[in-house]
């Protein structure tokens, strides 16, 4: 069988696996029985090693396609390999939108379920799983149609379970109605982190979507300056149109070091200055608002051969200070960091490995290279853990096992549920091995 090198989006620790492209549930079942180590993979948008399995069998979900007609209530059943992009291309002209979208539309439904992804509306609408009404899961011991009511444990273990409970072949989702392909966006620029956080605490609930971009490269008075954008779908407007394709492609892997403190600082400065201080209800295209980075294909290659890591953590409200401390540590360490993304999370869900907990989440993109980066992130782990928080597994590529276990105290529940459908631990991943998620 041909081996392929599989990467995560951060391009840091690739590994080789046997790659297959099953196009039916029966093929998935047969392949699962043919191997003693298997994992599903979507579009590889997780940053680290979640969708890799060195030496094992990796099943690309991309041929598990199909989009059912969308019923009058916005309910649709899609193959696990359908991407949000593909779904929107069909759904938007009919006036429907996905209930939750991550910062890129190039993720599959299988990947969105496995990471239980969140969007800019988590504070009100929760994560992806809240809008999944049913899914089909192929496990080594059988295939199950799961709903939260009929298979509570297995359903929730699969939501955020990083592909470790089995292969999802299809899912039924509840879409939301939209009346236009525009979002009315209110933008506010702040000179300090405290002001941004105060504004988000006070008024985020008035907006369906909210996200702040924070500059982690400035020190002193303007430390943590940033821009808050919030909005909701426009009530009506131009005829809904399909999303535009990407305009630019990065055709090569840039030299490592292209993104250094100087260039990143310059970029952040430019971006901050070009943003309005305050603008109300400006109409923006859905693509520009939800998926600004999708305009440049393969932008991850700009980080060079060594790649980059994304550090995303969540902490409860009581520990809001940790957000400030984390940004302070970063800005005083001179480690280059692109704009950090700050969001509020609403309540979590019963998924034992689902990432969101109510409070704050901060995500930082950091190029691999600075010698002090590994140690700095270990310090942030301690801070996050001491604050009762956790790091997002879909973004992780460097956490250690003990810390991960402490951050996800319900890991034992997860293992028990997984063992009920996969007693031999046939479904695993490089991530699971690195973090000893399966306890084998």
């Amino acid at each position: 069988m041909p081996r392929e090198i599989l990467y995560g989006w951060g391009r840091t620790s690739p590994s080789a696996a046997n790659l297959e492209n099953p196009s039916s549930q029966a093929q998935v079942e047969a392949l699962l029985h043919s191997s003693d180590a298997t994992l599903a993979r979507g579009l590889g948008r997780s940053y680290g090693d979640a969708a890799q399995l060195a030496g094992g069998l990796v099943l690309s979900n991309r041929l598990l396609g199909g989009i059912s007609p969308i019923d009058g209530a916005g309910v649709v059943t899609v193959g696990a390999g359908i991407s949000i992009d593909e779904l929107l291309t069909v759904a938007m002209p009919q006036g429907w939108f996905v209930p939750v979208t991550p910062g890129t539309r190039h993720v599959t439904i299988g990947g969105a379920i496995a990471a239980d992804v969140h969007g800019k509306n988590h504070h009100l609408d929760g994560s992806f799983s809240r809008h999944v009404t049913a899914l089909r899961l192929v496990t080594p011991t059988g295939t199950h149609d799961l709903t939260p009511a009929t298979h509570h444990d297995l359903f929730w273990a699969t939501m955020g379970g990083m592909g470790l409970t089995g292969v999802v072949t299809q899912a039924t989702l509840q879409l939301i109605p939209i009346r236009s392909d525009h979002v009315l966006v209110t933008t506010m620029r702040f000179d300090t982190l405290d002001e941004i956080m105060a504004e988000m605490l006070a008024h985020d609930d008035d907006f369906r979507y909210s996200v702040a971009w924070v500059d982690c490269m400035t020190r002193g008075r303007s430390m943590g300056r940033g821009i808050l954008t919030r909005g909701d779908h426009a009530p009506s407007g131009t005829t809904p149109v399909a999303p535009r394709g990407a305009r630019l492609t990065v055709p090569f892997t840039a030299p490592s070091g292209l993104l250094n403190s100087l260039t990143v600082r310059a970029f952040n400065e430019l971006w901050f200055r070009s943003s309005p201080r305050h603008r109300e209800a400006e109409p923006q295209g859905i693509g520009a608002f939800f998926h600004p980075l999708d305009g440049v294909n393969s932008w991850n290659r700009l980080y060079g051969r060594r790649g980059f890591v994304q550090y995303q953590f969540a902490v409860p409200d009581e520990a809001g200070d940790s957000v400030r401390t984390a940004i302070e540590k970063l800005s005083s360490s001179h480690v280059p960091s692109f704009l950090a993304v700050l969001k509020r999370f609403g309540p979590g869900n019963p998924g034992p490995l689902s990432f969101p907990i109510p409070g704050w989440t901060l995500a930082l993109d950091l190029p691999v290279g600075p010698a002090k980066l590994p140690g700095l992130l270990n310090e942030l782990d301690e801070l996050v853990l001491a604050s009762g928080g956790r790091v997002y597994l879909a973004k992780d590529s460097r956490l250690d096992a003990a810390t991960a276990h402490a951050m996800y105290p319900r890991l034992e529940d997860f293992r028990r549920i997984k063992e009920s459908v996969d007693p031999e631990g046939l479904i695993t991943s490089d991530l699971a091995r690195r973090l000893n998620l399966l306890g084998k």
Partner: protein
Amino acid sequence: MENAFGQPQNVVVLGGTSDIARAIALELVRTRTREVVLAGRKPDELAAAARELVLAGATSTAVVTFDAEDPSKATQCVSSAFDQIAGPVDLVIIAVGAMGDQDSDENDAVASARMITVNFTWPVAALAEIRRRLVAQGSGRILVISSVAAIRVRRASYLYSGAKAGLDRLCEGLADSLEGTGVSLQILRPGFVRTKMTTGLKEAPFSTDPDAVARDVIKGLATSHRVITSPHILVYLFAILRHLPAPLWKKINESR
């Protein structure tokens, strides 16, 4: 599994009592490594090295003994070392080698051949098995300890440096052969390192110590650079030395 910074969770060290290997293993344990297998000749020294690693935070250590003069058993040594680790092996360090005694070895056929066996043949035999296993596993890294002496062989240590030169050059091809397998090989070229192996030898310029080499290794693992030179400045020095006309090269070496 290795993390985004090339830091391994587990390591197999062949030649586990060499001062450089010990320092690297210690530094790895201080950063992230939990499981270490040390293979070497002397059980008591291996045990001491293992204890040192446990004190530094290793959760599991094991020792395997072998004789680098017997390449026919290299496969066996590699298998027993790999068997000590439950999952995939992240990093294999090849630190096997002996300085020998150039003056007496150079007129002694058996001793000369032994220098090549220990520094070149045994490591190459072991690499065959390591390569096979890591490629099957689809991941992993190999660090081969060579020497800047391999860049240009000196009269004063031509048996040692010549064997290292063979290993170093061979590993360049071996590294290319790993393209597309998920496995990578890096060559460590330390300069003159003050260790038990070099006591009594005249120090070369930019001499260093095992801890400094170990720190450079940690940095080097975070990159995909084929060669890690420690200290880094020797890259430039040897870029010149390598192309010096022979008479000048000899003169420099005599004067020292």
